[in-house]
């Protein structure tokens, strides 16, 4: 059998200029196929389905009913506004907390070998539902829990998303050319002026990355709003989930997802403006 099938007499590697000089038998395009298939199956097609569902009614007829219902309902609109406000508050608090931390981590000799940075990043390795429950218990223990449901939710969100703000700011700060700081001092700027005129403007791209990584997820992360809000706070993510699971209204759910998508695109467009300033610096 073997002899019948294979006629190879010798096997020599073909060098440069040989017909099969390439190391890999696949071209780059071919190597992209598995991911392309994945992308099509799990991103593009579902997205198209959402678009389809959002513009049709239960019988499959094209209509704008879903959107009309969404925008005419006071409860849904207030949920959207509350979601945005919670996300905004979380993001701002995250920036205020993360910037000094990242600044210390990037400058100090304390962070030898990245140990301190690791301590801040490590919570990300623990299951986040578990983390949320632990934080809730901790808040209850200290008596903060129950003071205000919104405050609880924001504390929970900040706790959960803080590393995502620290990391991009830290990355930008650590990559920043230290001689720029020295140049600023050399030209007569006090440490405070150096910070406001050089360090802060140059780290805006890191903040922008952080904002995209914190603002958008916090609008939908209803695990935290459920855990910390005593079931009294609904955010847009929860609303969508209810349409799909409780009410079985896929069309309205899809329309909500579409609205959320637009909000996200707008926020990306806003933060993207900062990132374009120095694409070379880049962050995450």
């Amino acid at each position, binding site marked *: 059998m073997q002899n019948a099938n294979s006629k190879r007499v010798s096997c020599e590697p073909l060098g440069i200029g040989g017909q099969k000089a390439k190391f890999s038998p696949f071209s780059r395009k071919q190597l992209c196929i598995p991911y392309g298939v994945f992308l099509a199956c799990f991103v593009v097609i579902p997205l198209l389905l959402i678009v389809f569902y959002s513009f049709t009614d239960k019988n499959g007829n094209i209509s704008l009913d879903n959107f009309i219902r969404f925008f005419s309902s006071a409860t849904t609109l207030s949920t959207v506004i509350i979601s945005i406000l919670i996300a905004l508050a979380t993001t701002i608090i995250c920036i205020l907390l993360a910037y000094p931390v990242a600044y210390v981590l990037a400058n100090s000799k304390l962070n030898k070998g990245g140990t301190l940075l690791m301590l801040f990043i490590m919570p990300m390795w623990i299951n986040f539902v578990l983390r949320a429950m632990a934080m809730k218990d901790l808040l209850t223990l200290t008596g903060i829990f129950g003071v205000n449901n919104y405050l609880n939710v924001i504390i929970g969100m900040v706790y959960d998303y803080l590393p995502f703000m620290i990391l991009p700011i830290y990355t930008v700060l650590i990559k920043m050319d230290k001689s720029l700081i020295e140049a600023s001092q050399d030209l007569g700027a006090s440490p405070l002026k150096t910070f406001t005129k050089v360090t802060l403007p140059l780290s805006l791209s890191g903040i922008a990355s952080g904002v995209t990584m914190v603002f958008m997820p916090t609008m939908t992360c209803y695990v935290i709003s459920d855990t910390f809000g005593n079931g009294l706070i609904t955010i847009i993510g929860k609303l969508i989930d209810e349409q799909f699971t409780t009410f079985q209204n896929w069309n309205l759910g899809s329309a909500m997802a579409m609205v959320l998508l637009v909000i996200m695109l707008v926020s990306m467009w806003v933060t993207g403006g900062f990132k374009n300033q*120095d694409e070379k610096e880049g962050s995450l």
Partner: protein
Amino acid sequence: MANQRIRRDAVMSDEKIIQLVDLCRCFDGGVYAVDNVNLYVRKGEFITFLGPSGCGKTTTLRMIAGFDKPTSGKILLNGKDISNLPPNKRPINTVFQRYALFPHLNIYDNIAFGLKLKKFKVTYENDQGHRIEKIEKLKKSEIAAKVEKVLKMVDLEGFEKRSVSTLSGGQQQRVAIARALVNEPEILLLDEPLGALDLKMRKDMQLELKEMHRKLGITFIYVTHDQEEALTMSDTIVVMKDGVIQQIGTPTDIYNEPKNAFVADFIGESNIFSGTYIGGGKVRFLGHAFECVDNFEVNEKVDVVVRPEDVVIKDRDEGQVNGKIISSIFKGVHYEMVMQTGKSEIVIQSTVERKVGEEVSVYIAPDSIHLMHKEFVSNKYEGYITKHNTVCFGDGEFECDVTKLYPNSILDEEGYIITQEGERIDLTDVDVNVEVGLKDIEISDHEVEYGAVGNIVSIIYKGDHYQIIVRTDENEEDFVFDTEDTWNENDRVYVIIPKEKIKLSLKEEVKR
């Protein structure tokens, strides 16, 4: 060496703008980047710190700028100690090695950065004759005028609105210079500012910088590892090595009268030979007694420096030393030839080519021979004897003959020494002085049982041999020795010293 202050010319005023007094900078791990530097800079001077990387020149500059604080010593600006003044309070501006232009600002804002921060005390007199003092910033129009003026000076008119990233390296360099100069500093520091430019641009910028210095009359302190750059531009050159000043002088002084073999080797090309001063204005090297103009002690071992362009090539038997041409390379303006005589080689630069293999002779005029005191005559260390009767010094353990510490002594079976008088002495942990000659050290690639390990940090060719310095990692102990073998800098090597070549002497009498 560090305390020399020999200066020749008096073009500048004698006012000392900067004085470094016993300046030291020690980094973590106990390494002295700058070691007891004493020096002054005169007002309006163009002074260059020159040396190989790691010689402490940049650290010295950073301390003057205020980015680094001295471990000890003082920096005086116009007689006042500024060692603890932050950089923003010093009337000094810096041109950084990689320019350090602010990427988020355009050219105008980069240059105006310092001007916008400047504050002045202005005194007004009102109608009643009262004087009112106000702190004012520069007006926008004043800033614009200054920026325009400085841009014109660096030939970048019309570049105000451009962003930094659209500029070429040379243009960025000019912006960096303009940004520093616009503040009208008393001193301009330049940290290898031309390092990133190509050769042609570098040459042009050298002349331009020199011209700017002449026009503005500001003191320039320049740091470079490029000896040609230093020779071209400076009024005064400070040659540094291992954080220590080797020589201070004008470019001509440094070139013609190098203080030691390091300076001679670092500045320009040179032939360095080991010679002996034999008295009567004569020095013996290459097997010939040459006339020279320096005076040394009779029979003192000296380093002899002869510049390749000072060697005159002649037909056989017409010069002082005969030899054979073993290589000849055309270098544009001249030929660079190597003549071998005995075991030594001598580099010659001449516009007349001699073919490889040709038998020739060379003549060296008395004033072309420069003699220097030998830097290393022998290696000296402090060490101690171990319980195995070996000696530890220079970060290594070596076998040695401890019986040499006491005349006619012997070792007994237990390792105690029995002196001539019959006394029994335990030498364990006894402190000793160790001396090893320059010819008594060998190095090897292979690990050895007894010896030290280190990296080759310096190789200087001395005509017929190399002088190599091996430095150990732990305490940075140096082993200096002569060898005919070829090694490379940064090679990791094991130092071997034959037992009989280690000269020991007791630091103090051992209690018996």
